């Protein structure tokens, strides 16, 4: 996109002028203000009509804030717990205790790597059965001590591999769905990046599902859908559009309760601002669920999931 290049150039220019402004006698603030205005207009032009496929790319942007970036800034005292007590530990799905607003919570966090080395360890953010079962173990802890549970979702999907199949990854996901359906404690899921199919849902059944503006959540990746439905790997843009995988669509479909705004151009353009938005929304919902009687939460959770779907009665035909 030519617009993106123009935005970058303009940003650089403004930065230069700001530096000059500090160092020299000459006052350039009116020039800076004018340029900033232009930049804003250009950004709105460029970003406010992002296609779904462009949002997919933003959701996957390598500089996008990852789970630990939010945990760092929104929670205190994150105390990671390791291991499923069965097979191993998984670095793509972290679990632990933390404080939110002075209250202890259990965190589930899908975490991608920044470097190649880190991505190797974290399997590019694709959890294995070890991760899902670690999550299930920590749900039991949440239940025993009535800790609310908060999931941060950001995964291309569960890890596809021989070992994962040997360790029954499908069964691991299924059992998490069941566990989260019943978990007698308030639960919130936040989709912060990629919500990759069953691999995301396995930690995403909750009383509140929140979603960043440019995050995606889908039954299949646009690449996958393109290959299967169009028998053509290149139809990712159309597939993304067809899948209704953006926050806006998901809000309309009732899958998501609230969309958390991102800075123009995406969360990575201003991580601090993104963190602040997410924190505000999360804390509001957190207070709500914590103040709702558990029976009510569970019954509402049941109704929410029981009612998903859209079909016609045959007399409509």
């Amino acid at each position: 996109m030519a617009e993106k290049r123009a935005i970058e150039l303009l940003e650089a220019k403004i930065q230069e002028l700001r530096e000059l402004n500090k160092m020299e006698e000459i006052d350039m603030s009116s020039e800076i203000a004018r340029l900033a205005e232009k930049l804003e207009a250009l950004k709105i032009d460029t970003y406010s009509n992002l296609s779904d496929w462009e949002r997919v790319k933003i959701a996957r942007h390598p500089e996008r804030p990852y789970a630990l970036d939010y945990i760092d800034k929104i929670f205190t005292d994150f105390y990671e717990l390791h291991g499923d007590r069965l097979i191993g530990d998984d670095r793509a799905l972290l679990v632990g205790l933390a404080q939110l607003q002075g209250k202890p919570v259990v965190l589930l966090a899908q975490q991608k790597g920044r470097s190649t080395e880190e991505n190797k360890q974290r399997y590019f953010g694709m959890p294995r059965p070890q991760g899902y079962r670690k999550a299930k173990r920590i749900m039991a802890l949440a239940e025993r001590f009535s800790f609310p549970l908060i999931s941060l979702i950001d995964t291309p999907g569960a890890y596809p591999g021989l070992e994962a199949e040997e360790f029954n990854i499908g069964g691991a996901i299924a059992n998490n769905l069941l566990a989260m359906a019943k978990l007698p404690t308030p639960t919130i899921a936040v989709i912060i990046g990629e919500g990759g199919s069953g691999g995301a849902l396995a930690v995403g059944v909750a009383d509140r599902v929140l979603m960043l503006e440019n995050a995606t959540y889908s039954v299949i990746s646009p690449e996958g859908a393109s290959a299967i439905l169009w028998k053509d790997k290149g139809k990712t843009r159309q597939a993304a559009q067809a899948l209704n995988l953006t926050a806006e669509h998901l809000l309309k479909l009732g899958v998501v309760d609230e969309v958390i705004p991102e800075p123009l151009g995406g969360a990575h353009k201003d991580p601090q601002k993104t963190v602040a938005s997410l924190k505000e929304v999360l804390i509001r919902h957190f207070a709500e669920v914590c103040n709702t009687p558990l029976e009510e939460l569970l019954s509402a959770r049941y109704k929410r999931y029981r009612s998903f779907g859209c079909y016609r009665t045959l007399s409509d035909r």
Partner: protein
Amino acid sequence: MAIFKEKHYLRVKLDKETDESLWMQCKSCGELVFKRRVRENNNICPYCGEYFFLTAKERIESLIDEGSFTDISKPIMAADPLLFQDTKPYPQRIEEAQQKTGLADAIIIGNAAISGIVVVVGVMDFRFIGGSMGSVMGEQICHGMEEAIRNHYPFILVSSSGGARIQEGILSLMQMAKTSVVRARLAEQRLPFISVMTYPTTAGVQASIASLGDVIIAEKGAMIGFAGRRVIKGTIAEELPPNYQTDSFALEHGSIDRVANREYLREELSNVLRFFVRQ
């Protein structure tokens, strides 16, 4: 995700010319077989033992006491919430599948008796868009479990599905959660759920309701798993064992309880049901 090409699995291939005829050719051994004989033999080739696909209705016939079936499916069919269009519009796919199968969607729910034990049974039909789970299948499975709860019957689900139905997007994904929350209620009521996995039980169906049986029985020759061979080969370039995602792989790795030959599946079900039903 319905990631399988249908033609790869449709092992019974009828010559267009002889479609209405009395004979069919076995894809496995090449023999010409009298169709009625195959049908009476649970759609197993009498020459080589190859299992041909069972439609949902054939499956029901082969599992339950004769004449005991009542269709209690909800009278619903797929909507098109996303106005989904790939190479064709979704409603057209639905209509074609309905015409091909005579079914409203990829599952039938019914009351039936197995060796005299009354159950609610759900049976998927792979011919209907790869047995994929969209809103209708999710709703029917929940409806089946709720009927089981209402009448205090065991619930049996026979899966044959490539996974979630892409054309309903996120709503298909949500069926995994939806069936799980109702499955939790079935468990609270201490009603048994026997999951039968047939060829194929994969992706979103294997990663939700099908794996949540109190007892999980695979039909011999089933395919069971989450990520298909192609996906793994594509992503990871790993060498996969020859029995990858077969019934024997699943049994060896502890994800199912038993494997049964098709001709014994009814007996298998009646054997296991007897433990859960006081007669």
